[in-house]
């Protein structure tokens, strides 16, 4: 419940962000830099004299976008590969899963950095890079789930009735492996937001001046000693959002997977 509540706030910020900020999130004021939180600036101002609260609100959209699109990429590609691997012949399975092993053996952040180097930086490419990094996880989960049910009677029955492979995959298998995938999606959303922050640390994520929480945090690190607030508030935003997704994921896991319910 707590997770859902936090996420609701974040989603509202993401949807209506630009409309509800008290200041222009990119408006600079060099006479008012590193201001502490006050009634005027709820979260203070940054090194350009920009209002941090406005930037945190607008940054919600970027962080959510990164999370959703990256995880969509990972889910669609990964789950599909996993379904195929789990359902088809041994050889196809081996080829797909060894390819997944290759991706998985890379330290995630290095792979993302290398992909960003190839694609060029920017938030769109960051989404793709993070998505690619998480493909093997979804492939593994989907494959495992398929292996668990592919010899169940209703599948064999469907096949006996002459249903095509793709039809069986979509109408019979997919609905039955959804729940572990949905749980993984919520958890991956949390990781994707953190991954964007990490890429921003290396200067590869969102490009200036648009704020994402990750970039604000990465920029704030140079000014910890001038003004701790620059790093604290976007950090808290990430913290609560990620926590929200994690709680949601745990909750969904309990709800969807009766074996784990206690």
């Amino acid at each position, binding site marked *: 419940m707590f997770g859902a509540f936090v996420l609701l706030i974040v989603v509202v910020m993401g949807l209506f962000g630009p409309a509800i900020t008290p200041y222009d999130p*990119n*408006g*600079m004021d*060099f006479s008012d830099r590193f201001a502490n939180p006050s009634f005027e600036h709820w979260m203070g101002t940054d*090194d*350009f004299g920009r209002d941090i609260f406005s930037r945190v609100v607008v940054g919600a959209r970027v962080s959510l976008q990164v999370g959703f699109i990256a995880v969509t990429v990972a889910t669609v590609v990964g789950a599909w590969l996993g379904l195929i691997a789990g359902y088809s012949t041994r050889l196809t399975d081996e080829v797909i899963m060894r390819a997944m092993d290759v991706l998985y053996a890379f330290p995630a952040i290095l792979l993302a950095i290398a992909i960003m*180097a190839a694609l*060029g*930086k920017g938030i769109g490419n960051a989404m793709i890079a993070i998505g690619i990094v998480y493909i093997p996880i979804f492939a593994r989960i989907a494959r495992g789930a398929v292996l668990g049910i592919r010899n169940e009677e209703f599948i064999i029955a469907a096949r006996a009735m002459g249903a095509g492979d793709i039809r069986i995959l979509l109408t019979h298998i997919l609905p039955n492996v959804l729940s572990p995938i949905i749980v993984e999606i919520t958890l991956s959303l949390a990781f994707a937001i953190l991954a964007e922050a990490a890429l921003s640390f290396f*200067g*590869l994520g969102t*490009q*200036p*001046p648009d704020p994402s929480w990750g970039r604000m945090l990465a920029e704030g*690190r*140079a*000014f*910890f*000693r*001038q003004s701790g607030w620059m790093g604290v508030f976007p950090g808290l935003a990430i913290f609560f959002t990620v926590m929200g997704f994690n709680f949601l994921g745990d909750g969904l896991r309990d709800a969807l997977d009766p074996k784990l319910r206690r």
Partner: protein
Amino acid sequence: MKKLKLIAPFVLLVAIVLGISFSTSAQMSEQVLSAAHDAEWTGLDPHVASTVSSFYVLANVVESLTTNNDNIELTPLLATDWSQSDDGLTWTFNLRDGVHFSNGDAMTSEHVVFSMNRIINPETGSGRVASVGGPDAVWEAVDSHTVSVTTPEPNAILPVLLAARSTSIVHPDSVDENGVIVVPIGTGPFTVEDLDGTISMRLAKNENYWQEGLPLLDAVEITVIQEEAAREAALLGGEVDFVTSIAPQSVQALQDNPDVNMLVSPALAYKYIGLNLTREPFDDARVRQAIAYAINRDDLCAAGDFGLCTPLYGGPIDTGSPWHFDYAPYSYDPDKARALLAEAGLADGFEMELMPTSTYQDTVRQAQVLQAQLAAVGITTTINAPEWAEWLELEGNYRYDGYICSWNGLVDVEHYFYLQHRTDEVFNFTGYSNPDFDALVEQGRQVSDFDERYAIYEQANQILVDAVPYVYFYNPAFTRAMSPRVQGYVLRSDNANLYMNTYLEG
């Protein structure tokens, strides 16, 4: 006798204690500076390396024929004196006697010719061919301690160009079978030891160094700490004695700290935006001038360097240089900028892309300020900040609207104008071309009298400032911070990082 026997152990004890204290004091007197550099060096081949971080090290290991002293005046180094032939085509350098490489070999003219030919050879891939007379220069050994160089065109400033450490003299044994120099054997005060990739090394005293009594240090232990907070903490916590750069926002705090000696020096360098003259609307001088008027350089300086800079309202050269020119038309004037844009038919403004590089975060910060300032006169901008590798490629192929960068270590007036702005010259990335300007900078190269040269470059400067291929921002400052124990280090305006005269007190 008995008493003596009793005393003996005490004597021994005293001797041991003395011995220990002696050996520790001997260790104390070993002068080892622990230094943290701010970036990893990108190779130690002086003829190939191009980064400041490489030359922070190399300037202590290899030496060039000429050099600049701490006041940035041209002085002899490996050459004692030089002269130009009457036709201006040939320079003759007399080499210093008694100079030895760190491996003990005496330096002769053969080594000079070898080094210069290595730079000119395209297979080396050196970026400094122009500094040794160009691809057609012919270097010859006249005798064991005299070399001459002949160029197709007169070159009045060759000794000035040869002050760059990237034209240093190296021993042929430095070059491995692939033609690469991993560690140069030079004539400098230190040699490279214990090299660990690009993260740590020890600069050990060169026992064969030709300057009597130098260097004062026995060794410099160099590590690399890239993260600014960590570098600052390493200095404050006593992990290191010396750091090569301090984030501008921390300078004030360190200046107030009695445990730190904070050096700040105006730099022979400038930050600027280069505009692409091969693209519309930047081919129109009025548009470029409008940008120059639209910029509030004080804010730019506050954002990029936290006030550690001198704004440039005209040309690139600071008041501290003998080559400073007064012409400075571009005070902050957004109305005038809008008027100029209207004149150019762009009353409704236009869109452009700013290209800083993420490798140098200060340029990204400047881009954000520029974005706000240009928006005020109707110019809508986007920011694209590629990494250095990609940035260089885009810049070099006119694939940008405006790039943000800086030029460093510029000493002679020539360094500010010739290579950047002469038609089709190697660093002319803006596409600027003006025959009058070209004629002036070529003339400037063939004259050596100061006043005469000054008059020539004053005209060139004015042409350039009016044409605005570069919009100059400001001269930044260089910083070093060190423990008060560190003495004798001079922060130079050309940013040369020399440990030769440095020593530790106490």
